[in-house]
């Protein structure tokens, strides 16, 4: 089926070419970082993880979101998602590859990456994160490819495909849970040391991921003349709405615990995000934007009248994605390090090189998703 990716119109090829250029630029920037070391980033002794690891955190959620299609389709036999489920699985593949790349570019000694496997360390959450991410990726490759092949041949997918798809459900939950444990299991970082971290991660994954997917699918619908199915879109929008409600609710739980208990350590990071600390207010405009957009998206998504109107839905999804990205892809990691271990503030801003490398990785993800989705659309069209 791979050959389907090699035939396309001019628009398809110029998009691929554009992505390749971005990847090339990102790779060039990475060569500089590889030679100079992480000194080219804005990270520091105090903020020792930042933009890269934050992108990993966000994209793990995007990867996990495929399960919002897989679960209803394979477990509850919700037929309306039949046309979409493979897109979710293929997007997960792209998202996980981006996750892995963001880990690799964050390493000080990337050539020693395989020490992770040579010295398996069950007490380190990072080891388990690598395990579940790769496991989930493998499951999605197998399930996605096999079910698409079955569709190409016009036969129902094999029993084992369904079994693996169902196995992938707990895997999807685990990738985000384990990623949350990276943060939630370490002492002395109040902002992260919270039992609801994994639940928050899952809630934000199950709204942000499907929102990105739905937006991308709408583009596919336009450029490839491909029908998503009205009911499938409506159901997915409902799922996104419920998950976003959970996401906002969980965040408010954090606010209650921090501010009602009135313990300085628990409040400090949140204060930094919303009003600045010791004169450092880098995140303040972003976080107010995120809060306003999050509430606005809920106001538009909860009433069925606005949710079912396509232009409003598109707008709501876009602002939802921005809000959740600011929360996970910008604030969560950095605010965990602020204030630092000495109650001081070391501000962080990503450098141009950091952003260029990140852009390159996003372009790689876009390329993978484009190619895989192109194959899926071509097969589905030929089969129909």
């Amino acid at each position, binding site marked *: 089926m791979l050959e389907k990716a090699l035939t396309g119109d001019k628009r398809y090829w110029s998009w691929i070419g554009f992505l390749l250029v971005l990847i090339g630029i990102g790779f060039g920037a990475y060569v500089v970082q590889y030679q*100079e*070391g*992480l*000194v080219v*980033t804005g*990270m*520091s*002794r*105090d*903020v*020792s*993880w930042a933009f890269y690891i934050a992108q990993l955190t966000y994209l793990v959620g995007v990867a996990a979101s495929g399960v919002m299609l897989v679960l209803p389709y394979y477990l509850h036999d919700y037929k309306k998602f039949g046309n979409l489920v493979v897109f979710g699985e293929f997007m997960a593949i792209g998202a996980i590859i981006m996750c892995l790349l963001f*880990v690799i570019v*964050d*390493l*000080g*000694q*990337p050539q*020693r*990456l395989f*020490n*992770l496997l*040579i*010295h398996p*360390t069950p*007490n*380190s*959450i*990072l*080891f388990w994160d*690598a395990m579940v991410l790769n496991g989930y990726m493998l499951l999605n490759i197998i399930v996605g490819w096999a079910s698409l092949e079955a569709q190409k041949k016009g036969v129902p997918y094999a029993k084992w495909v369904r079994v693996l798809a169902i196995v992938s459900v707990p895997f999807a939950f685990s990738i985000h849970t384990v990623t949350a444990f*990276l*943060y939630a*299991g*370490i*002492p*002395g*970082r109040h902002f992260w040391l919270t039992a609801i971290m994994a639940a928050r991660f899952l809630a934000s994954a199950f709204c942000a991921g499907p929102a990105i997917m739905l937006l991308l699918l709408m583009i596919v619908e336009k450029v490839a003349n491909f029908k998503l199915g009205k009911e499938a879109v409506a159901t997915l929008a409902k799922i996104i709405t419920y998950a976003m409600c959970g996401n906002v609710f969980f965040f408010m739980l954090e606010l209650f615990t921090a501010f009602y208990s009135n313990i300085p*350590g628990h409040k400090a990071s949140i204060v930094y995000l919303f009003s600045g600390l010791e004169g450092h207010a880098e995140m303040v405009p972003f976080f107010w934007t995120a809060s306003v957009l999050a509430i606005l998206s809920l106001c538009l998504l909860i009433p069925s009248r606005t949710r079912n109107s396509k232009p409003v839905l598109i707008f709501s999804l876009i602002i939802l994605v921005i809000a959740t990205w600011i929360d996970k892809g910008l604030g969560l990691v950095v605010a*965990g*390090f602020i204030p*630092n*271990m*000495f*109650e*001081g503030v*070391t501000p962080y801003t990503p450098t141009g090189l950091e952003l260029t490398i990140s852009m390159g990785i996003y372009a790689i993800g876009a390329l993978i998703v484009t190619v895989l989705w192109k194959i899926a659309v071509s097969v589905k069209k030929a089969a129909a």
Partner: protein
Amino acid sequence: MNNTRRNFLKVAGITALGVAAGAGTAAASYLPHYDHMTPKPERLHAKRWGMVIDTRKFHSAEDYKPLIEACHIEHNVPEFSGPKEIKWLWVDSYHHAFPMAHNEFMSEEVEHKPFPLLCNHCEEPPCVRVCPTQATFKREDGIVIMDMHRCIGCRFCMAGCPYGSRSFNFQDPRKGLKQENPKYPTRTKGVVEKCNFCAERLAEGKMPACVEASEGKVLFGDLGDPNSEVRRALAENFTIRRKPDLGTNPSVFYII
């Protein structure tokens, strides 16, 4: 046919043995380098190494300078300024050093005095718990130490350490060296480093460099021995530790 199969099994068996032996050697080569050495007879040993700092005998940052210099010269700690700096032993104010022990109306002297900070060599080190490659590990004598050749530079230990005791080599550390101590290895960029309680000096029967430079104001010894000098100092004086409520059980004590 049978013959071929037997031959195949022979070859396969020998290959498997070879691979196993190879893997064994490879694994052995990855053991912490201490395990390959026969220790010198004069080496110092303890059940659990610990440090007691008599802060009453230090009055200004100047007083700590010889200790810091001794440490940083001994271990080729590079000098970079700014937020990407490397430090093994440094000083900070009371509020920064003991952020959970804020007290109103404190003695002026204590409040404005600098306190020396270093790796606490915790009994329950979070950095060891989170390290994905066992590059950071705890020795039997309680010293938390790093294998710089195994560190992948993921910096999970920095996120995990509640004391900010670890530094990351954002750049080539050799660029920050004015002079090089040839007896101690320099590092490469991309690895984490920190105080090692002078494990290399203990192996030669010497006290840690900062302890030696302190001229008796910093005590070092076996916390596991009730008759040791450090235990006596702890029994006779009021001491505090950094962030004891986190359950890491630091091995560095401060006499106030």
